[in-house]
């Protein structure tokens, strides 16, 4: 019952509060900061410093693929997307599903026989691949809590911190 409630809460958060833009800077390079609250039930929202990452990445397409209108790298994507114009919405969530394995989503994918992207990552994976991929290559932070501050719900979920097991007997097999 409690877990159902928890997952319902996650679902609500997914639907309503994804990628809420917290502040738009007049840089012409998108918002200065993006609030990512995908996992806001176990971890607090991440205040993603967009402006700083614009400087590090240099090119919008590094993260936004082909949606910012500056071409797409790679032999595979470039074949179709080299000339793709700027999309109306460049937010990750506009393409990457928050709930990629819902029955409705699976049904949608199966019914579209001409869909090429049959294996598009969900929103959570899109974030983590994009962030971790660069962070690993460039020596950026890669630990869970380097980006996500875990809250009480998260501690209980991982049986960690205040909820850590008291007995430290070795796991019997």
């Amino acid at each position: 019952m409690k877990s159902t409630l928890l997952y319902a809460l996650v679902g609500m958060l997914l639907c309503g509060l994804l990628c809420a833009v917290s502040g738009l800077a007049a840089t012409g390079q998108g918002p200065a900061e993006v609030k990512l609250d995908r996992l806001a039930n176990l971890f607090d929202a991440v205040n993603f410093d967009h402006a700083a990452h614009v400087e590090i990445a240099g090119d919008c397409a590094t993260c936004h693929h082909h949606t910012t209108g500056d071409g797409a790298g790679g032999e595979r994507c470039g074949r179709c997307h080299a000339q793709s114009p700027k999309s109306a919405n460049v937010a990750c969530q506009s393409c990457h599903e928050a709930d990629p394995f819902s029955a409705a989503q699976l049904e949608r994918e199966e019914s579209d026989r001409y869909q090429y992207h049959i294996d598009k990552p969900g929103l959570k994976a899109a974030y983590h691949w994009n962030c971790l991929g660069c962070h690993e290559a460039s020596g950026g932070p890669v630990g869970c809590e380097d980006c996500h501050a875990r809250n009480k719900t998260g501690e209980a979920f991982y049986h960690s911190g205040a909820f850590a097991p008291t007995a430290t007997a070795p796991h019997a097999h």
Partner: protein
Amino acid sequence: MSGISRRRFLAGSIAGCAATTLCGTKQAFAAGSFTGYPEGMGVLVDLTRCIGCRSCEAACNKEQNLPAPAKPFDDLSVFDETFHGGTQKRRPDETAYTVVNRYQPEGGGKPIYRKIQCNHCAEPACLTSCFVNAYTKTQEGAVVYNDKVCVGCRTCMVACPFNVPAFKYSSAFDAKIMKCIFCHETRLKQGRPPACVEICPQQALTFGKRKEMIKIAHQRIQNEPGRYIDHLYGEKELGGTGWMYLSAVPFEQAGFDVTVQNEPILNNVKDFLSTVPMVLAIWPALFTGFHLLATNKGGHGHDDDHAGGDAAAHGEEDDKS
């Protein structure tokens, strides 16, 4: 005394044998061609994506109301745990339906993390080995277990080629096998992915119809041939499993048993087992016939003569007295 006479018991046995011969062989032949429910769900586990965060273990623990772990789920020292003289890494047990283990590939490189759980075979050895039918392969693709009928014989634990079913030794008198059930009751039946899939931050676990998972897996291999070993573990192994794996390193280096056969375990004994009911039905009739023929020829007439002679002898004695 027992309420059932020997004659009734034997008659019942023979009738039962005849019934199993008629129905049983048909089922046995059908079983050989069963390749899983076409609309059954599956999970594609991509080992190249797993970062070993153990969130799937935590999600499983919560979803299945399993006992609190010995160590926190964010404690990565569990990857160093070994058992049986260092020969075995962690495995699912009565407190955990899934575990993630770390493997160091040969020739260095980044460690590989592998999630272990029930692979939900199309034709499960646990199911076929269970003589009380405690196991069911559901049309959604899950292999589920019913502890109400389980007698605790643990044959399924021996039968499973992946060593997945675990016995709840802490309640030995209330027999219970503990294993991953694909979140069947709480999620799969409602068309939702299992808890481990939903929590995975890396989408190392992809959920969908098994036939779609096979397509996606081969597309991944085709798109990035340098990233993957050209093999989908579980596509063919043991007649096909619901959970399948992609890897960057040879599968044996990630602890997989690569010696398993492609045929379902049942096929090893199916031919033999399908003849058992036939033997049980035909042999008694055959040998009863032999027995009757043999006894008719030899002793019958002789016994009658002998009995007649005795009666005559008694008659003579009576007369004399």
